[in-house]
Each structure stands twice: as structure tokens, then as C-alpha cells.
């Protein structure tokens, strides 16, 4: 990074007055944007560690108030959350493996200039970007293959994203040269062997990008699960989150008569609010942990994609 800075600013040129004003405005606006984006995220984090009464009383603003892990304890008491968390991990891992197994070989084949099917296969995929059967016909197909209520309904229909495939194809095209294959071919290497033993080991970057693109997609989506799964034992995390965060079923509904009962209920209610913040954090943990890594690769993916979008 330091090297870059040195290149960008070779020497101090005196800035004119307009530029000074411009830079100041820019600094203020960007700082405002930073605060607007960061504060809600920060607030969720501090609230998840705060005392429930302080959170609902509006006392939590900059730092956790009355540090406690009650919210997190409450999350782990709920069996459905733990189970769905494990389900989500399973679906994401299997989903990504299928995605890779389908996307990378296709992308590789389409990146070879000599491949006779290049044009027709590309058209085959591009059509699906602009035209589709829609929700019900797809649902009926999934049903007729008896995939309803299985994880394959979440994995197989979206097994190849055309956008991701194009990104991978562009990568292979510019990084795995045809000459490399020709050289290997002379030594008796077949395309299959070449792909698995030479091309893939050289393509760690694109594999990481694909894992992350598809992985985050699987982890965050709820639509397919909403349509195809009916057994609550099989629900992924996002559907359980939807029940708790959106349709608000965790809230208590019984009426309290005595003042004591009312106070207890109120405390319970506040605890549930904090539990929701903790739940948000826990559900984002896999992505949060990977974030620095993810961000670098995601950006790389956009760069590759934009070369030939």
C-alpha cells in the first residue's frame, strides 16, 4: 500500500482554493456516509451485549450498557435456532460443492477457443438469463422429481449462476493459456487430466471467489426454502430468523394480571428484544469471520467480471 501512495503523490503541488474547498466537502460527506452505514451495525453489536432494560429504555447509544451475555444464552436455549444453524451449514456446504462441480468445468470448457460447442452452449445459458418459466412451472418440475422437502430442491435448481460462470470463464481464459494445454498435450495429457491436475491447482483465486459468491448466496437466501420446504425440522437459519425477527412469534401474548406478573413479562419482553440482536450477530458470524477475506475476493470477482461483463 505504501508503495502505491508514493507513486500517486510524487510531490506536493500547491492546491488552488477551489480544490481545498472541494477536498473539505468531500471529507465531510464521506465521513457522514461512513457514520450512516456503520452506526446501525455498531448499534446492533453493542445492544446484543447490553442489559435488556437499558436497550429498550434507549440508554444504549455508543457503548454496551451493563455488559451481559443473557441475550446469547437465550439464543442457545432455543433448539430450533441451533438445529437450523446446523441445517444452514449443511445446505451451504453441499450447495457450494455442487455449484463448483457444475460451474468450474463448464466455465473451463467455454474458455477454450477451440471448443466446438462454445457458441451454442453460451447461447443455451444466456437465454436462461433473460427468459424463465417462472415460479409455478419451476415448482411443478421440482415436485415431479420428488424433490419437495429435500435439500436438493434448494441446491439443484440454481446450481449454475450464469454470471458466476462468466466470471470464471474470463478468469480461465486469461490465466490458463491454450499454449499451456498444447504443451501438456504433447506430453500425453488429456483435457480431463489437464483440468484437474494443472488448471485447477492454478485457479485457487477463482475457486475462492466462487466459493464465496455461492456460499454467501446459500447462507443468506430464504426464498427457495420458503417454497420448497414444509418440514420445520429441515428449515435453514434464515427461515427461523424470519419467524423470530419478522413475524415476531417469539413475543409473548399472555395477559398479565398482577403488577408483579406484568413486570416479569416486561422483563421477558425486553430480554427477547436483546435476544434478537444477539441472534442477528450469531447468524452473521460465519460471514463476519470471513469478511476481510471475502471482501478482497469479492472485489476481485467484480474486477474480473467487469472486463467482459
Amino acid at each position, binding site marked *: *500500500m505504501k508503495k502505491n501512495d508514493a507513486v*500517486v503523490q510524487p510531490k506536493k503541488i500547491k492546491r*488552488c482554493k*477551489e*480544490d481545498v474547498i472541494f477536498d473539505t466537502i*468531500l*471529507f465531510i*460527506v*464521506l465521513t457522514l*456516509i*461512513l457514520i450512516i452505514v*456503520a452506526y*446501525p451495525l455498531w448499534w446492533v453489536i453493542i445492544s446484543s451485549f447490553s442489559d435488556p432494560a437499558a436497550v*429498550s*429504555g*434507549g440508554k444504549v447509544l455508543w457503548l454496551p450498557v451493563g455488559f451481559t451475555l443473557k441475550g446469547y444464552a437465550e439464543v442457545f436455549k432455543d433448539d430450533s435456532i441451533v438445529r437450523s444453524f446446523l441445517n444452514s451449514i449443511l445446505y451451504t456446504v453441499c450447495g457450494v460443492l455442487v455449484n463448483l462441480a*457444475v460451474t468450474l468445468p463448464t466455465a473451463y*470448457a*467455454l474458455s477454450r477457443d477451440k*471448443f*466446438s*460447442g462454445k457458441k451454442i*452452449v453460451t447461447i*443455451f*445459458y444466456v437465454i*436462461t438469463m*433473460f*427468459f424463465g*418459466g*417462472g*415460479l*409455478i*412451472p419451476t*415448482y411443478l*418440475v421440482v415436485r415431479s*422429481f420428488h424433490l419437495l422437502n429435500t435439500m436438493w430442491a434448494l441446491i439443484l435448481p*440454481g*446450481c*449454475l449462476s450464469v454470471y458466476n460462470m462468466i466470471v470464471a470463464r474470463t478468469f480461465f481464459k486469461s490465466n490458463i493459456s491454450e499454449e499451456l494445454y498444447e504443451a501438456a*498435450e504433447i506430453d500425453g495429457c488429456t*483435457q*480431463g*487430466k489437464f*483440468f484437474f491436475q494443472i488448471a485447477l491447482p492454478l485457479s485457487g483465486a477463482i475457486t475462492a471467489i466462487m466459493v464465496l459468491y455461492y456460499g454467501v448466496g446459500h447462507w*443468506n*437466501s430464504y*426464498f427457495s426454502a420458503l417454497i420448497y420446504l414444509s418440514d420445520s425440522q429441515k428449515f435453514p437459519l434464515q427461515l427461523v*430468523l*424470519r419467524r*423470530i*425477527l*419478522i413475524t415476531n412469534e417469539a413475543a409473548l401474548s399472555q395477559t398479565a394480571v398482577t403488577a408483579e406478573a406484568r413486570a416479569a413479562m416486561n422483563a421477558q419482553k425486553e430480554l427477547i428484544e436483546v435476544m*434478537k440482536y444477539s441472534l*442477528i450477530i450469531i447468524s452473521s458470524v460465519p*460471514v463476519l469471520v470471513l*469478511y476481510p477475506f*471475502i471482501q478482497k475476493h469479492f*472485489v476481485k470477482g467484480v474486477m474480473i467480471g*467487469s472486463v467482459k*461483463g
Partner: protein
Amino acid sequence: MKAKNKGAGTIKPKKYTFMQLLKRDWSLWMFCIPGIVLTFIFSYIPMYGVQIAFRKFNARAGIWGSEWVGMRYFVRFFESPYFGQTISNTLILSLYSLIVSFPIPIVLALMLNSFRHAKYRKVIQTVTYAPNFISTIVMCGMLILFLSPSVGIINNVIKMFGGEAVNFMAKKEYWRHLYVWSGVWQGMGWSSVIYFAALSGISPELHEAAKCDGATKFQLIRYIDLPSILPTATILLIMNCGSILSIGFEKAYALQNDLNLSVSEIISTYVYKVGLIDNNMSYSSAIGLFNTLVNMVMLIIVNTVSDKLSGNSLF
């Protein structure tokens, strides 16, 4: 994959017949097979199955055995009160979000690009990308929590200044703003990446030369940066216009409740409810097909216009 692949070893400079090509590229074709088979099953069969929109769906007879009814379901949709409501809700929502969330990332990228502090810029980028990786459900959940009339932070602040708590989610006049601006919050950083990439491709000599001629920073943006990201912006605009009626299901559905339904019921949520909750398969498919056709027409129109005006086009 270890099968003997004799054809690949003997490349001769001559015209190949189709069978010879197939034989020569045998292994590459094998690479494509899994994708082709799965895409065929889950994309092309449904495309063919869309004819259910012209048949009266009968669960026992299946798609192919159901009775033909022609345009009945389309006519029913055009005549139903939901037609005007869902179409206009969808159009307003997606135009509003296009108008707001299309230019903002461009402005952000331009600002970041002319920002002097490289390290601070890195921080801003890292933070503004982050919301993109939050799931729709979590984002909507945060919105609902923040806006909650009893315990939400926004209403706590309003109460602190002596105001009345407002139940934002129940007021339909706020719904579209919430939808669009939360989308900006979530997506602006990430959408700016592609423009930022295009901007960093500009040769620094251009900037140096302009500076020597006394250009101010604002003029650099106006005359160098903006024109150079215009092609990228046009392509993205065309693609956005092509999906103007297919605005996402996930977020609209998550933010819906009975009180805001009159503005939040859009085509995709309506298709879902009619088809899978009311079990009216044919009617739902007809609405879905209509939606796809409008999108395609939009895409073609915008593409043609852009091609004529600026020479930038998708195809």
C-alpha cells in the same frame, strides 16, 4: 475423465464434420454435460411448462394433461382489481429505487476516487461494503427492530425530543421510502465497486495533463472521470431496466404486513400467494408469464434507445 481421448491428439488443419468435432472435443463436452442437464431440467422444462398458463391446471393430469383454456387466466388477471394495484405498486417501487439507487453508487465511486487519504478511503470502502453481505431477513429484521414503536431506537430518540412514537411499519406512506432507502444503505458501497474499478483503469497521465492545464478537481471529475465510466453505467442501466418488473421478492415479502399491503403487494409476492398459498397454479403462472414478457419488451426498448443515442448496447 481418464478415458482415452485419441481425437484430441491429432489436430489437422482441415474442415471438421460435426461428428469429428464432437469426437475431438469429447472431453470438453463431458465438462459441460452436468450443467447442461441440470439447466435443461430446471430452466428449460419450466419454460416449456409455462403453457400451464393457458391450461386449467389439474393436479391429477399434470401439466401436459390439463385442459386448454386459452387466454382465460390472462383475461381474469387484466380484469381483476389486483392488476392495476400490483402493476402500479411494482412500477412505482422499482422506478423509485432505480432513480435513487442507480446514481448514488456512481457518485460514491467518483468521490472515493478523488479522495486524497488512501488509508481512510480503504476504511470507508470496507465499511460500506459490509451491509451487502447481511441477509435480506436480517436487514429487514433490523429495520423492524429499529422502527418498533415501543422499544426501537428511532422512536426512543423521537420520544427523547418530546415527540410521539410513530409505528412506521404500519403506515403505508412510509413503506416505499423505507424499502428504497434501506436498499441504498445496504447496496450503495457494493454497487460502487464496479465503477471504482472502471475509474482506477483511467490512465493517470490524463489527470496529470489536465492538472497542468489548471483543471480543478471538480473539472477532472466532470471531464475525465464521468465520461470514462459512462459506458459501464449505460450497460448497468439497461440491465436494470430489463428487470424493472421483477423487483425482488425476498425483501418486499419480508417487509409486508396487513397494514401496508395496499402499497407493498407487488407482482412477485402476488404470484407467490396466488400460486402456492391459494394453490391457483394456472392463474399464478399467467401473471408470471405476463411479467416476463413485459420485462423482455422493456429490455429490448431500452437497449434499442441506448444503442441509437450512445452506441452502448447489450446485444
